[in-house]
Every structure is written in structure tokens, then in C-alpha cells.
């Protein structure tokens, strides 16, 4: 394998040096003063000066794209953008993934030897019985969280504590409660349905695939537990990107199955869900594929939720998304955009048959038929 080849790999199977580079890139996004967005903490109406790292939580808090057709595409966009940020620190970095069929505390490396990801050299502590579950180093020193904030400046755990919600400030805690064993054993112990990678990527249609994939993803969050287990705070834990890189890998694997080139075509990949719009409101909104990807497309949308703060620089005063002439990499888009449909490069390939099923439309713009496990 080659560092810098742009391929996202199983994090346990890359070299410890490469893991170290990835970790340093994460840390830099919160410590390098060049890696901040414009503005200052107390800017009104929207906070500025947020680090590239804290921006991820701000974005996730402002949007909550879960439980709908755009779950996968929105998180792909998030990961792609995050990887670009990491590469500002070191252009060789790729956003590697945690293969959730393995125990992250004993994930086999290239030679089959177990690798522990939750160490102070890489992802920090995951044991609820150690230091009360705090992640500790390497994150504590880099101010990824601060359990003893001064001047009352911190982000609270309670999502409704609006006094302590400024994305400029560090979270007051970063905890994990990972149990022994694998995700699969955890999910089954909780009575949650666990789909194998094969079951996910053998899905015939997008709705079927993304529904299964999101269910396992939900379990993965709960499995690591603590901060990452709460959808309101999950993006305060760097490990979340290793989970989501894996989610995107499985999405990509489904797209890249042999004989399924249509899954790379924006017109066909989403099947009956292609015309889906957002439904609902508040935290129970189901985001459709036609909906603009926000916050990167701004919140100038009638469906935007009151009280949700717009996210700079895709808001006043920068408005990057409105001025592609000034900011060529920006510009409004939805999940149909080819940059979203095209999967990033991963280190694996799956070879299964898949076929497009034409069916009638249901609530999500998809079908009962398409959701049936085959």
C-alpha cells in the first residue's frame, strides 16, 4: 500500500506510522491557528472563528440528516469535505475506516495480529471503567474537550442547554463506554438487528441498502457509546469519522458491484427515491435526495428550522456557497450531483449481482418491494 495514493483503507491494516499521521492531522484541525474558519467567537448572528474540527460538530448539530434517503449522501459529503481538511495538514492523508466486523481493540492487521485502536497513541480510551470513560489523550491536551472549563465557556452535553452551545468552545466531556466484544455481539445482546456487510451490499435497491446500513450504523454509535452514542454530540468524538468512512465504504461497495454500473449514474442509483424531498420538521426530519446538502448550500430554505443557527462560512457574512466565482470549490448541490454519486476509493471491492427493480412508490418515494430482504 502507498501512503498518499488517495485510497481509504482499513485503519487496522495501515502501518502504525500512517495511523500516527492521521492522528496528527486530526489534532492539527483543532490546534493549528490557521485551521479556523473566519470570524470571532461572539460574532452575531452566527459564531465565527471555529476550528475545523469543532466545525464538524456544529455542522452535524445544525442538520441531523438521519433516517431518510439522504443519510448516506449527506454523510459522504461530510466525509469528503473532512478528508480535504485533513489533507491541508498532510496531503498524503486518507480518511481510513474502522471495519466494524472487528473489535476495535483487537482488529487484525495485515498479518492478522491484533491492533488496539483505543490507546492514548491513537484514539484514546474507550473503557467506561477507566477514568470514568473519558477519552483522555491524545484529545485532552489538544482541547478536543475540557472537563474543567474556565469562564463558563464550554459546550454542554444537554443539546437544549443553549447557554453552553457555542461551537467555538470545547465540549465539556468526551466519553466512551465500549463493551468487550464486537459490534455484532453487542447488537445482538441489545436485540438489535445486525446486517452483515454482505447483506448490506447485496441489497437490490438503494432504499433497501441504505436502510440496513443505517441500522447497523446506529448500533455502531451505541456500541462505542458515551459522547458518540448520542446523535446530538456524536461528532465531538474523532472516532466517528472512522465509523462513517466504513459506512461510506459499504455504500461505495454496493455501488461498485460488478454488473451494476447504473449505481454510478445519478439518474438511476437511487431508484424510486430519486425524487424524494424532505419530510417532517425538527429533529425528526427525513431529508430527501433532491434537498440541497446543508449547511454547505446554506439554510436559505423554507424548510430550515427556526432557531437553528446557520453555519459559517456558508452563511452571513461569507456566504461561500453563493459565490462560486470567489470560492470555486463551493456552490449549492444536492445528492444527485455527480460529485456525491461518485464513490471515493476504498481498498476493497465486492462482486455480487444486483438489479434494478421497478416498483410503485411509498412514503419515502420508494417501495415495499424494494425494502424486502432478498
Amino acid at each position: 500500500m502507498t501512503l498518499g495514493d488517495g485510497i481509504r483503507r482499513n485503519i487496522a491494516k495501515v502501518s502504525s506510522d500512517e495511523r500516527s499521521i492521521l492522528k496528527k492531522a486530526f489534532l492539527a484541525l483543532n490546534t493549528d491557528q490557521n485551521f479556523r474558519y473566519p470570524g470571532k467567537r461572539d460574532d452575531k448572528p452566527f459564531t465565527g472563528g471555529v476550528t475545523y474540527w469543532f466545525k464538524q460538530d456544529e455542522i452535524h448539530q445544525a442538520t441531523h440528516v438521519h433516517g431518510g434517503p439522504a443519510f448516506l449522501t449527506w454523510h459522504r459529503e461530510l466525509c469528503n469535505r473532512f478528508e480535504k481538511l485533513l489533507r491541508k495538514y498532510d496531503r498524503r492523508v486518507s480518511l481510513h475506516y474502522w471495519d466494524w466486523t472487528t473489535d476495535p481493540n483487537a482488529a487484525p492487521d495485515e498479518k492478522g495480529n491484533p491492533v488496539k485502536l483505543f490507546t492514548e497513541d491513537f484514539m484514546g480510551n474507550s473503557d467506561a471503567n477507566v477514568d470514568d470513560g473519558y477519552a483522555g489523550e491524545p484529545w485532552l491536551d489538544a482541547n478536543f474537550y475540557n472537563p474543567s472549563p474556565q469562564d463558563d465557556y464550554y459546550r454542554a452535553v444537554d443539546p437544549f442547554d443553549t447557554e453552553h452551545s457555542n461551537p467555538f468552545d470545547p465540549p465539556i466531556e468526551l466519553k466512551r463506554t465500549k463493551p468487550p466484544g464486537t459490534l455484532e455481539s453487542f447488537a445482538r445482546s441489545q436485540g438489535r438487528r445486525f446486517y452483515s456487510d454482505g447483506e448490506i451490499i447485496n441489497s437490490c435497491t438503494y432504499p433497501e441498502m441504505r436502510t440496513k446500513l443505517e441500522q447497523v450504523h446506529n448500533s455502531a454509535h451505541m456500541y462505542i457509546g458515551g459522547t458518540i452514542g448520542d446523535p446530538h454530540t456524536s461528532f465531538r468524538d474523532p472516532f466517528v469519522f472512522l465509523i462513517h468512512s466504513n459506512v461510506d465504504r459499504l455504500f461505495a461497495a454496493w455501488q461498485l458491484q460488478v454488473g451494476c454500473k447504473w449505481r454510478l449514474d445519478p439518474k438511476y442509483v437511487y431508484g424510486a427515491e430519486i425524487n424524494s424531498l424532505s419530510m417532517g420538521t425538527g429533529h425528526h426530519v427525513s431529508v430527501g435526495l433532491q434537498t440541497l446538502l446543508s449547511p454547505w448550500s446554506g439554510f436559505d430554505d423554507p424548510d430550515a428550522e427556526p432557531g437553528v443557527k446557520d453555519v459559517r462560512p456558508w452563511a452571513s457574512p461569507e456566504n461561500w456557497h453563493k459565490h462560486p466565482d470567489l470560492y470555486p470549490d463551493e456552490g449549492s448541490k444536492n445528492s444527485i450531483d455527480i460529485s456525491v454519486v461518485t464513490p471515493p476509493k476504498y481498498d476493497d471491492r465486492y462482486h455480487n449481482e444486483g438489479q434494478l427493480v421497478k416498483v410503485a412508490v411509498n412514503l419515502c418515494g420508494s417501495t415495499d418491494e424494494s425494502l424486502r430482504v432478498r
Partner: protein
Amino acid sequence: MPILHFSGGFSFQPPFYNNNPSNDTRVTDPVDLDHPQQDDPMHSVKFDSTLSQEQLQKRIGCDPLKYFDFEFSNVYVSRITYDDGTSTDKDDLIIGKPILLKGLLVDVDPHLERGQLYAAEVKVIDTLIGQLNKAVQSELHKSIRTADGGGFFYLSAHFESELYNVYHLEDPKISDKNSRCISELLSELAGSKKLEIYFRVDRYNLSTNKGDVYGYISPAISDTKDIGILVKNRHLIIDGKIDEQVKKDFHIDEEDRLMHLEASYDIMKDRGIILLRYLDFIPFIDKDYHTLSGYRYYAIIANNNKSNIAKKDVIVHIVLDSSHEEMKKSGGLVVIKLPPNIKEYRNLNLSVKVAKNEVEPQPFLTESKWNLVLAKSERPVNNATKGQVVLKDSQECMTIGSNQQRSIDVTVFYNHQLCPDGTEIDLGSPEKDDYSPIVAWFTKGVAKTLNGHITATIQTRNLEDSEDVRDPLSDSDNKMIRGNLPWDRYYGNKLSLAIKGEDAHLFSQHINIPVRVLHVVDEEKMQTNINFARDIMPLLSYYLRYYPWLHIEVQSCRYNQFLDLGDPGSILQSIAEILQRLRLDDSDWHKMPRSRDFPLGGVKLLERLECITSTDPNCGI
């Protein structure tokens, strides 16, 4: 600050099936309001995860994923009136900018039909963002006057609210250098002046849950200036000298409040302009936005408030454009510039005349002698971040706990000045309400003004230990209920204030105040063991009876009930989040819409339940 005129559409998702308290969604209910079909399972509104979106819409008449959501759609800035009173429909970069507004429009009481817009935020793209104080819906008015039309589609109402947390929204390409609007806005915000929004909604279609909206955003105007001179919401009422043919043409029925014509205006003294809201006196005659043909409308301003106005007193005489195109551009607001020599507003008199087919203008609307103005109380937002924010609370409708008293304050104006002492105001309490026992009344029948004000006290019934009251669920007037009145219902009625001896039906001289009365949890319950069925379920029974689709989401392409208030397990599992949301301020979007009606003391009881179930030894159980 320039005035931003706008128009467009809105959508609103109200549940209507609870407007009749007899409807109980725990059993199969008729919900097709026009065509009840008791035996038709398609009309059950019980939660059913197998329904499609279309089936659900048909059954309950709205999208429960957006219960009570009110939002603008396709609303744009259509005109800008600058500080000097000049205006443009095209020569400013802010013209055409979308205006987004979204909030929760929750009725004070389902059968009293008075909406309260909570937690709303308005955003004029690239221009400004702000939040609305609670806005209360006005009385309804019939805006489409056909011989046979009925229902919501033909009605209109308006909202007005001061904005808070107002900020300029910047854009790299729009600034005070190339937009006069932005230049004037920045001056206004730099001076910390306040803004307000006024909008009128009409043509609400029950099938689509959509309607039309017209309005404007302007600097805020306080009620009075210059030692008690009324300058805001001066009312125009039908002129007593109106011609019978005009009354007939406009379908005016002076005994029917819906069928009145009216207008109101504000004076912006510092700019020497008048803001006249005219949509309520230029009605449509059909669904195609036609107004009465042949009629012309004149706004006439005289510097004389006597009944006989000489020609020499007239300082402004303009013809109003009554076309729908102009309504869309103006947002229903005509801005009238006063002559620069007019500095005194005490004697200003505005009237509207009409002329049909080129005949001489004749009386139509005239100034109301009386104006009743409810005071706005102030309250800090009950959370720390917003601690700096003081919201204005309206008394236009009220929610009060059982067996409590609440005062209201009213300012009474006569000829736009504080009325003489001793003016009598009738305080009216109803004898009967078809949908609720009478639960609120004034403690006296008449109040007399002092320094232009009256204070009146409202007393509410003890819902937990009531005397005999008529059961509104019974067709019979003789069926009574007493004691602890059922918790799964709503209780409320209207109270009224009117100038004694005047035309009490005139809106400027008569105010209706819908009052909702809530159950109150007995403090003693906090000290004893909690029985789920006895103590907790009553708190939730109102929601179970009327709102089975309150807590749903779309998951895996199905409606999923993420919280079942009929299931103790579901409640206990979510109790932390239930409490988090119940504790939020009413102005917080994340508070569930109907949590604003939660029984008083209910939060404390749930906190105790949470404490007990967490096996906290300090709970004393």
C-alpha cells in the same frame, strides 16, 4: 430602516378534528368535518403505521410530521419604501430576495379559534434575521365576499409582532455601497431601534394546507406618542353615512363582525408618513382575485378631526390602486406622505371614500371614536442564554391555571387621546359555550377608566373541585359534571370588553379575549407515592384523546411513533427528553407545540417520577 413589503404564500398544518371536544381519537372518529362517516374506517384518526402519506392527509387533513408548523413559501420582497417615503419596486438589490418565516401556530384553545404564533424566526435573505415575539391572530374577517362562499378559504386574519435578536445578514456582494435598503437598515440597527412585522393571511385551503400572505417589515411603532396620543392601530370603521347601495355591493352586515369592513393605520411621526393597511376594506368578490368592478377608493387626510371637514382642511387626497397586482407589490400597505408643514397629529383625520363609475366620492370608512388597546406585559425568557431577552406577552388571549386570578390592563382612547376618567367599560362573561363549561369570568361587570386605563380581574373555575357544570359532550343542557373535571378535555371561553352604550359589535370598541384554563396538579401528590394510572396518565390524556399523531417520524419508509404516551414503558424510556422539552421556554422551537398547554405543576410531577424511577435515594421512596 426602510419598509420591506412582501407577498406570497404560506402553509399551515393544523389538526382540526379536536375542534369539537366530543371527538376522541382513542375510538374511531369521524374526522371528515364536512362529511362525517362514522362507519368508514378510512376516517379513523388513530395512529396507524401502515398508512401512506396520501391516506393520512385524507384522514386528518394535515401533515402530522409538521403539526402546527406555520411557514412562508415563495414570499419575496416586492417593494421597498425608504426612510423619506419614496419607494421602489425594482431598483434595489434587495427587491426579490426571499423572506423565510417559520414558527408554531398553536390555538389557545381548539374551539376558540385564536392562533398564537410561537418561536417564529424571520429571515430576509442577505438582509436581516430576527425572532418574533409571540404573535396573536386577529379576529377573522371575510375577505372574499361571494353570495354563497363559506369556510376558511373566504376568511382572513392578521398577525403583528415586534422582532427581537435582529441582525443584519451580510453578503460579499451586497452592501450599503450598492443597496440603499442595506444602508438604511444598518443605520437603524446601529441605533438599536426595533423592528416589527405585520402580515395578513387569507385563502387558507384545507385541502392543500396553503394560503396567501401579504405584509411588511418596518420600524416598530409604539402605541402612543406625545403624551397619550394614539399613533398605532388607529381604527377605521364603516361610516354611518354610507350609502345603502354601497353596503349591498360590499355585502356589509353591520351586525356580523365577519362582514364588516375595516382598516387600521399608524403614524410614523419622525418620517411624516402614514401606514394604511387597506386589504380589509377592498374585498375580493370571487376566487380569482377580482375586486368590485367600477369602484375607486380614495384615502383622504384632513387636519381636522371634527365631523364636518371642509375642503381647506384636506391635506392629502389620493386614489388607491385596488388591483391584485398592486396588493402583491404593496403587501397590503399604502404609505402616504404627509405635507412637510404638518407637525401636529392630534387633529389628524383619515377617511376612505368610494366612488362607483365616476360619480362623486361618498362616505365609506371613518375614524373610530374609540380604541381599546390591550397592554403588553413583559417577561424574560426562562433560560440563561436568552436571559438578556425580554419578550412581550400579549393579553389578546390568555392561558391561566385552574382556580386562579389574572389581571388585564386596557388603555381606552377617545378621539385618539386618553379617554376621560369615569368612562364605563362593560366586562362581559358568557353564560354558555357549546364546547366547554364556563371556566373564566370577570370578577365584576363594569370598570371605570382612570387616567385612560382600566384594570380587570379574571377568575378561573376550580377544575379539580368544580360545582355542577354542563357537560359539553352531551347534547342535553341538563347533563352535569362536577368535582374533578375530566383531564382529557380542554376548557375555555371568551371574555369581552366593550365601551358601554356604544356599538359593541364594532371591533374597535369591543375586544374578545379567549381564555384557556388548565388543570393544576395538586401539590400534595408530590409528597406521596406516584401511581402511574392515577397521577401520570391524566397529564397525558388530553394528548391521547386528540393528538395520536403527535410524536411520529418517518423511519424505514413507515410512520413510526417514537413516543407513545399511552405506554408507561415508552414514557419512562423517554422521560429525560420529555422533561428537557417541557422545561423549554414557550419561545423555543424545540418545545413541542402543545406542551404549552401542559397542566400546571405537571413538570414537577414528572420530575418526581424521573427521580423515583432513577432509584435516587433522595427521592424518599
